[in-house]
């Protein structure tokens, strides 16, 4: 429960309001290991603590977090400089079902800032590419300027063993890519719905409609996983801030099987 000091090795501005932090242990020795989909509580001393998904390569020792500057803590975080110290607690929570997905097709659907929590899963899938069937990434953002990891997406698009589709809700002059919501990409992707595991991250409405489209195509609710974000504070299921019906998002999630939470998603009271 005590935050460990990590030093900012690098900070990169990804879009107008999104940035990536690369962190290393202050003592230079501690080893950090996590599973794809888990999150850390990042403490900005004197400001506060926020839960942020780990978005780097799980096989790499550098801790990577990409987030958007929206609240007081993330805004302070966006102003960090190389050499600054932050506190880290974690990793916490459940992870993407990369083992259950072995031998099956995998459809990864990201909306907006939902791509970073899925990136470790993609790294894992690509590092063990022969273990999986088709791997598809469907990514929707607001505008072309909001597309994250552009260079990496281009590299992924160039691979023959990964199908990448990107769409934006609003095109801008000069944009020749797809325009439309991410759910429209589901019919374009080549995968076997009866033998597919889907992983979705984005705003809750986007995840609900994506799950519906996947199910229309024949993917079972039990094969769909979503990552939830609900006011996590302690990270270990003690404080109750992230209670989601009978579940705690920080401990039972953030990755949930869709059939286990789909009824909770439409309950306004929780």
């Amino acid at each position, binding site marked *: 429960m005590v935050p460990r000091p990590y030093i900012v090795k690098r900070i990169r501005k990804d879009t107008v*309001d999104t940035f990536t932090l690369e962190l290393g242990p202050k003592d230079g020795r501690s080893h950090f290991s996590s599973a794809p989909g888990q999150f850390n509580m990042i403490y900005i001393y004197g400001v506060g603590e926020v839960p942020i998904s780990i978005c780097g390569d799980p096989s790499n020792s550098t801790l990577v977090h990409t987030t*958007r500057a*929206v609240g007081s803590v993330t805004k302070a975080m966006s102003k960090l400089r190389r050499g600054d110290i932050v506190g880290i607690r974690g990793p916490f929570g459940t992870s993407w079902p990369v083992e259950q997905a072995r031998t099956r097709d995998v459809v990864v659907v990201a*909306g*907006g*800032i939902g791509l970073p929590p899925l990136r470790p899963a993609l790294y894992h899938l690509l590092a063990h590419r022969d273990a999986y069937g088709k791997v598809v990434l469907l990514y*929707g*953002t*607001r505008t072309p300027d*909001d597309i994250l990891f552009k260079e990496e997406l281009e590299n992924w698009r160039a691979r023959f063993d990964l199908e990448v589709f990107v*769409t934006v*809700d*609003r*095109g801008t*002059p000069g*944009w*020749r*890519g*797809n*325009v*439309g*919501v991410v*759910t*429209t990409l589901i*019919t*374009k992707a080549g995968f076997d719905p009866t033998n597919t595991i889907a992983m979705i991250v*984005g*705003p809750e*409405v*986007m995840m609900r*409609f994506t799950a519906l489209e996947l199910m229309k195509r024949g993917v079972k609710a039990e094969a769909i996983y979503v990552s939830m974000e609900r006011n996590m504070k302690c990270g270990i299921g003690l404080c109750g801030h992230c209670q989601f019906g009978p579940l705690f998002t920080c401990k039972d999630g953030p990755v949930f099987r869709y059939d286990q939470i789909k009824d909770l998603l439409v309950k306004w009271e929780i």
Partner: protein
Amino acid sequence: METLERILSQHPFFKELGVDYMQLVTGCASNVRFEQDQFVFREGAEANQFYLIREGRVALQLFSPERGHITIETLGEGDILGWSWLIPPYSWHFDAKALDLTRAIALDGKCLRRKCEDDHHLGYELLKRFSHIMGQRLESTRLQLLDLYGVRS
């Protein structure tokens, strides 16, 4: 070689339409090709066709003097393009421009309109199919309007 009838009958849009109707629809179909940046149709023009895109991508656009050509949606392989041929006053409400070299099957809407008037069962079958597409596009548009990825204020 794949015949038009075979291609059309295998498309989900025409699923379970029936052999006789499929032959009738095929009689109204022809292969078309649009070069990159060529307009498939222009806003205000008479709408007498719809298209089944076989290859390439088409952008549905509106022109605004202030903002230029605004792309509202892109359609691609397997998508159906255009329903204005079915609804009076039978004129296009948007521009459609090929983003890549695009191959499609054009279906003669004028011919199909006549046949639908003569045979209301065919009309109902086609309307059911177009209603489904309209519903999907409406749902997508609503999600786009929600601006889900914007910062919550």
